[in-house]
């Protein structure tokens, strides 16, 4: 099919052609490892003067009256309390963290940034505010501001990007490559990293997840807390099996206000209790996955 092309940017299939995973050259991880797990923690600041991105409680008789204090507080709990629970789990199992953080949240929650920086977590850009990229007035300025804020706070330029709610314009990968990002994670279309063409140099996409993601599972599908553990294990076991001949990547994505709730935290912990024992599974950051793929994967198109 020929779809009408956007004036600026590219259609998805102009960035990467179709490629069946079964027909690719095998990818090998170091020391005989089969797969990589990367864990992304999402920290946001919700603007109390805007409609809340998600809600747990709808107002009596419906509608969405403003301001929405209960749902603002419900999210704020994650940064005051829930994050610190998740941090204990990462520390216990020595999981290298990936902090996916809004630019404004870097300034709002310095304690969180400090705790992650001390542990040498990777920080990736996640929009300056938690607003869809299609609605951001100046996309390039937004992406740049994220780099500046993260560099100032951590001393390092971010190498990875995940759009707020994974949203992109037709042009996002082009701008990200031009602004010096090495990888993006918005394209949830494979179990292996892939190259995306841009109008300049290509950019890597690393497999992220909407399936093993607490927003989708707990807030949209309304599963009970234990389902997060069960689905993660089902996902893990299948990918582990699939990765026999060629390496694969599994992502787990959580938000402190969801999996950091007291009644959910233990199901998150249980995942690592189980899979951390596997000797042929690597726990890496996004940047480590990118570096490995740059060295061992197919060259950029």
């Amino acid at each position, binding site marked *: 099919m020929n779809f009408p092309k956007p004036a600026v940017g590219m259609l998805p299939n102009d960035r990467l052609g179709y490629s069946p995973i079964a027909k690719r050259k095998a990818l090998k991880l170091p020391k005989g490892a089969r797969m990589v797990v990367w864990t992304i923690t999402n920290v946001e600041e919700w603007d*109390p*003067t805007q409609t809340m991105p998600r809600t*747990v*409680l*709808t*107002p*009596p*008789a*419906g*509608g969405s*009256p*403003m*301001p929405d*204090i*209960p749902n*603002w*507080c*419900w999210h*704020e*709990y994650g*940064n*005051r*309390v829930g*994050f*610190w*629970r998740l941090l204990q789990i990462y520390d216990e199992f020595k999981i290298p963290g990936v902090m996916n953080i809004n630019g404004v949240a870097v300034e*709002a*929650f310095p*304690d*969180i940034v400090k705790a992650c920086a001390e542990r040498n977590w990777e920080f990736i850009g996640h929009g300056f505010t938690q607003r869809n990229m299609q609605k951001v007035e100046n996309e390039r300025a937004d992406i740049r501001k994220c780099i500046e804020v993260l560099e100032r706070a951590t001393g390092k330029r971010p190498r990875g990007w995940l759009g707020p709610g994974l949203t992109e314009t037709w042009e996002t990968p082009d701008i990200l490559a031009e602004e010096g990002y090495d990888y993006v994670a918005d394209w949830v279309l494979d179990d292996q990293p892939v190259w995306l063409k841009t109008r300049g140099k290509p950019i890597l996409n690393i497999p992220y997840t909407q399936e093993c993601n607490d927003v989708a599972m707990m807030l949209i599908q*309304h599963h*009970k*807390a*234990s389902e997060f553990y069960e689905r993660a294990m089902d996902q893990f076991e299948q990918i582990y099996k699939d990765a026999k001949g060629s390496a694969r990547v599994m992502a787990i994505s959580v938000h402190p206000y969801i999996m950091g*709730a*007291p*009644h*959910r*935290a*233990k199901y998150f912990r249980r995942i690592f209790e189980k899979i951390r024992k596997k000797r042929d599974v690597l726990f890496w950051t996004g940047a480590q996955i990118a570096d490995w793929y740059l060295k061992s994967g197919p060259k950029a198109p």
Partner: protein
Amino acid sequence: MANPMIPRERSDFSAIVDRPPLKLPGNARIVFWTIVNYEVWDIAKPMARQLLPAPTGVPLMPDVVHWAFHEYGMRVGCWRFFELFKKLKIKPTLSANARICEDYPRVAEQAKRDGWEFMGHAYEQGPIHKEPDQPAMIKRTLDTMEKFTGKRPVGWLGPGLTQTLETPDHLTAAGIKYIGDWVYDDEPTVIRTANGPLVTLPYTIELNDIPMMLIQHHESDYLLKRAIDQFDRLYAESKHRAKICALAIHPYISGQPHRIKYLEAIYKHVNKHKGVLHWNGAQMLDWYQGIAAKQLKAAE
């Protein structure tokens, strides 16, 4: 009020790990805070929650089905609650629309007789954003409750936890000392208002039968499962710092025959533990005011 404070101006960000632990009296570790919600759903208005969508998908008025759905809680369900709490010798916080004193005096009388704490929960059910005169409604709520019980409530929970930016200022002007609307912590906190400090107590929209049963559509026994998971985690953490585990229930939901046994089982689980206090909001406020002079002063 021209420029009411936004939440961040009322309360600075504070990470729980940076605060000195709170201590409960004696060997107590955790407070289990039961909040029972009794409401008045006026048939002339849209009903607060719907279980059964209208056949055409368009809600029609009057909505007798959901008026009756709620009414069941007042006729039948709440008596299962009274029986349970009497047996357990627990005096919950009653988050009530003040109109229950007029529309359901039999129910309100029972709560009063059983020594429950009356907490302001608006005059009747509906989002506070639609209230044309909040200070008058708040005053009417507190006056009605005081007239009925002889005691002026010290606590407040917005209907559906709704607030406008001005609400905390109106509440302190009316003498309210604590609110449950700010579900952003495991501990009490103090927020700033135009009339001095206001304490927030950690109410819950996670361990609450409205989101769990009516919005997320979990099975009945999940109320028990989540309560155990929530309590166990907070209990473990309460080894190092006092914690509060809130449970919010409604008679038309948890008072249903197929759910009540799970509610009863929650208390069976909780009461197996040492160091659990079944306090209501007013008791928690007294305790917190005694140990939080610094925080209260800072919000002057």
